[in-house]
């Protein structure tokens, strides 16, 4: 489970107005976004002619993280804040701690491996143990050194419910509701109840519910999807199992040789500018920058721009697929690895 610094939770609990929550919701948006680069990097490292099922499973999670980021932005907009996406401090540094994290989970940008899925991705999405001491109670305890992301979302949901509909002061025309892309998983945040429902959705799609690995739509939550990958076997209903499910589904094929050996935590500065990988890496970072800018414009009052952002998401994957097949060249020599996706801001492609 993702453990976060207690101060963030304290601030949510201490909030007296919607404005007091703006920074905290912004942190949640950053957190949802920050999972995309590591997931996307692992996904892109899967060679095109193999490992397609795993590719698709990670991809579904990436799409839902985009949905969660969108929901977070809608909540922030609804309570009168402005999401800040195209900003230098929005992007986490990899390898590093995710936003609000306490540093016990260092998240890298690396090629796919079963260890990465088990040790990092599952850790990011891990649900709270149902029998844990309720987080809100632990706040008063003197020995607490961390809170959890689940607790943070629970506190945020409780606080918004406590503040009530008066907290919804944002311009409703700024709500981004691309049902063409997300169906009924996306809806305007017009009340405290909408916000509470949306927060539950984020948590349950990531972690499942205390009773079930399924999310509200009947799909497996992110944690369980990653667990399936780690076990290379699907979860299936099983009446004999304690919670009704077991790893008794179909096998998931994984060909370890069909993974590009990507440069971990690729930086543009580590690719020769005049190499093919340097050019493609620059192109990738430029498209990534465009995506951030398009999302910023979308949440700054032009919801129709979401379509352009989706077009850029496709371009980003395309640019990434092209990039990861190229040898990384540094100092005039091939490094022996392939170039990894470059998640850096860049407004001048080279």
């Amino acid at each position: 489970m993702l453990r976060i610094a207690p101060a963030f939770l304290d601030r949510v609990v201490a909030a007296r107005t919607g404005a007091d929550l703006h920074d905290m919701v912004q942190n949640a948006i950053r957190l949802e976004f920050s999972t995309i680069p590591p997931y996307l990097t692992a996904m892109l490292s899967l060679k095109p002619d193999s490992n397609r099922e795993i590719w698709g499973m990670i991809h579904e999670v990436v799409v839902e993280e985009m949905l969660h980021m969108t929901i977070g932005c809608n909540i922030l907009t609804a309570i009168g804040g402005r999401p800040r996406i195209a900003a230098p401090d929005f992007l986490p540094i990899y390898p590093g701690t995710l936003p609000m994290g306490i540093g016990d989970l260092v998240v890298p940008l690396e090629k796919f491996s079963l260890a990465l899925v088990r040790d990092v991705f599952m850790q990011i999405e891990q649900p709270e143990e149902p029998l844990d001491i309720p987080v809100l109670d632990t706040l008063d305890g003197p020995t607490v050194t961390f809170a959890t992301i689940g607790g943070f979302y629970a506190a945020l949901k409780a606080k918004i419910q406590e503040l009530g509909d008066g907290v919804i002061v944002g311009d409703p025309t700024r709500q981004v509701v691309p049902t063409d892309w997300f169906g009924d998983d996306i809806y305007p945040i017009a009340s405290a109840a909408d916000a509470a429902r949306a927060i539950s959705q984020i948590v349950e799609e990531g972690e499942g519910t205390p009773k079930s690995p399924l999310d509200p739509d009947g799909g497996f939550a992110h944690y369980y999807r990653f667990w399936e990958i780690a076990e290379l076997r699907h979860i299936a209903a099983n009446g004999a199992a304690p919670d009704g499910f077991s790893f008794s589904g179909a096998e998931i094929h994984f060909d370890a040789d069909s993974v590009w050996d990507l440069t971990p935590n690729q930086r543009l500065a580590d690719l020769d500018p005049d190499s093919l990988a340097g050019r493609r890496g620059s192109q990738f970072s430029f498209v990534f920058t465009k995506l951030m800018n398009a999302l910023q414009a979308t949440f700054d009052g032009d919801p129709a721009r979401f379509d352009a952002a989706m077009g850029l998401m496709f371009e980003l994957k395309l640019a990434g697929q092209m990039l990861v097949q190229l040898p990384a060249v540094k100092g005039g020599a091939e490094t022996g690895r392939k170039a990894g996706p470059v998640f850096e801001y860049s407004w001048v492609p080279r």
Partner: protein
Amino acid sequence: MSYLSPRRISFCGRFLSDVPTRNNDIPNFVDGAAQVDSWNFSGGSTVELLNCGALTTGAVAAGDPAAGFVVTGAVDRPSGKMVDIDPAWQGASELWGMRLRIADRATGALAVEGRLAVCAFRDLWTRQRPPLPNGQPSGARFVSMLDKLDWGPAAEGSAAMTALRAGAANGRLSVGWHTFGYSYTLSDPRYRTGTLMLHLGPHADTEPETTLVHRRLQGLTVGAADGTRIPVTGAIDFAVTDDGSAVHLDLGHALLVADVDGHLPRLADLPAPANSIVQLSIGLVPDGNPPLFGIIAETAAIRLYDFPDDRDWYLTTGGVVSVAIPAVLATDVETRRFALYARLVSGETMLVAQETENGIFCRADAFVQRLDPGETATVRIHARSFGRPVAGLQFTLAQIAPADATPPPAIAALMPTDAAGVAEIMLTGTDPGNPRRAFNLDGQVFRFLYSHKVGPDGRPDLTDTGLAGGDAIIVHARDPHPVPDVPEFERDVRPILAQYAQLYPIMSEHLFDIADFEALSTHRQAMLFAFGRSIEDPNYMPVTRDMSAGRMATLVKWLSNVPLRRGTSVAGPGPGPVTMAAAPENAEKRPDFKAAMARGAGHEPHQPVLSAEILEGRGDA
């Protein structure tokens, strides 16, 4: 006055053009055909400007903040696309869905951004001297217009940007790109990129949108003894100020380049007999209109500007140059043709090229058209004489392709140019009768030459007009395609999409098999999104913009009725089988259509060649 204006701002850098190439070969269109793959068969059509920085030239003085500006595509939208209209005509690749953004390189602060009008390249010629490590010797020019301008804070501190903005009160800017040095070579780090010089200036209300129509000094081609032709200069477009005090020349696109970067070659290094020329100069035709290729007394030559002798000149100036005209010639430049002089090794001076006949230069704006049956389009030809609109000029049109009796689009009777120097060609699409059905190619591509001069055969005469065969009006007339009441996948949809899946493997490599029922059902929303865009949207599908209205309507109708399945989104397409775009062994040896055209298959200027015989004996001092 266009990008030739002294208010111009020039940039130098490179561009990415990731054009797909399977659709260059007509046999590849046949359903199920084994595909012939050339140098970039897996391309995605993306166009992007790479590291294009401003030059301290034109209006940009050293110390002006604009010297630190860059030009890029949009930074918050998908990339523009480069597209051929059809495999039958690859000599007018167009830019679609493109925006240009001028910004501070260091901070990213916006100076100005605008939408680029769809434009096709022109003036293709073989301008890069051997060796050719990049495999492509040709260069072309795009001229277009930026509108919907958005000026940003970075413009305010720059004198050059302030002047440009003052000249753009009508909300438009003129844009000219020179492109050359494009690399076909997979092993080249510059693969799929080319060199770019880009110029911005004000755009006058009376100007065409996608071409310069000022004045044109024709280029020079030298014939070698073995019959080969050696291009020495391309055509030079230029504009003279109203008061006759200066001439602004787009010399850059007329110059040979020695390498991919754009260094200039030395005339002495050209093959014989072109190396007989030691200096080229631009001036006015001498008194008495002496014949072309005649020796001119040095005292009779009227020189205004000597070609640069600096190998870096193009890289530092971008190739557009303003030249002061002595007051004594201020009237002459308005009535006298410009001339190209060559000083020979022998010490003699020769008149080697001159401005178009009577100073008349005409060009069709927006000359690439797509027409469904019954659809109409208007192509405007702009005509000027010595830079001024010329009224009453009658044009002649002649179909040069196809050579068969396929019913062409209907063309209304041509009227002469109006007071603004504009003649309109009204086109209406007709059913071409599916003449290319054997190749599963939609409709037919028609090419119409135009000229204000008529030859003895009654056909357009291009001689001394500055026009080349490549200046034809290009029309893709599409076949009618009735939309079924209830489209069925196998009967109505798969046949359309299977061809795209075959020709554009990038789709199945990185998106999904667009001809697969299950994949289409899953990604229905993404497909409806892409098929429903405006054709000018960079996300428009098909990227080639070659689908008829009936076929498009059939797809949209079918997709709209497919039940929505969970997990659909454009962000969510699953992958298909992928093969890396490794070039086949013979990729770089395949015939190159564009280079072939540049060597004479359509773009060669209609003007005399300076023959080896004429130069004979003049190579000796």
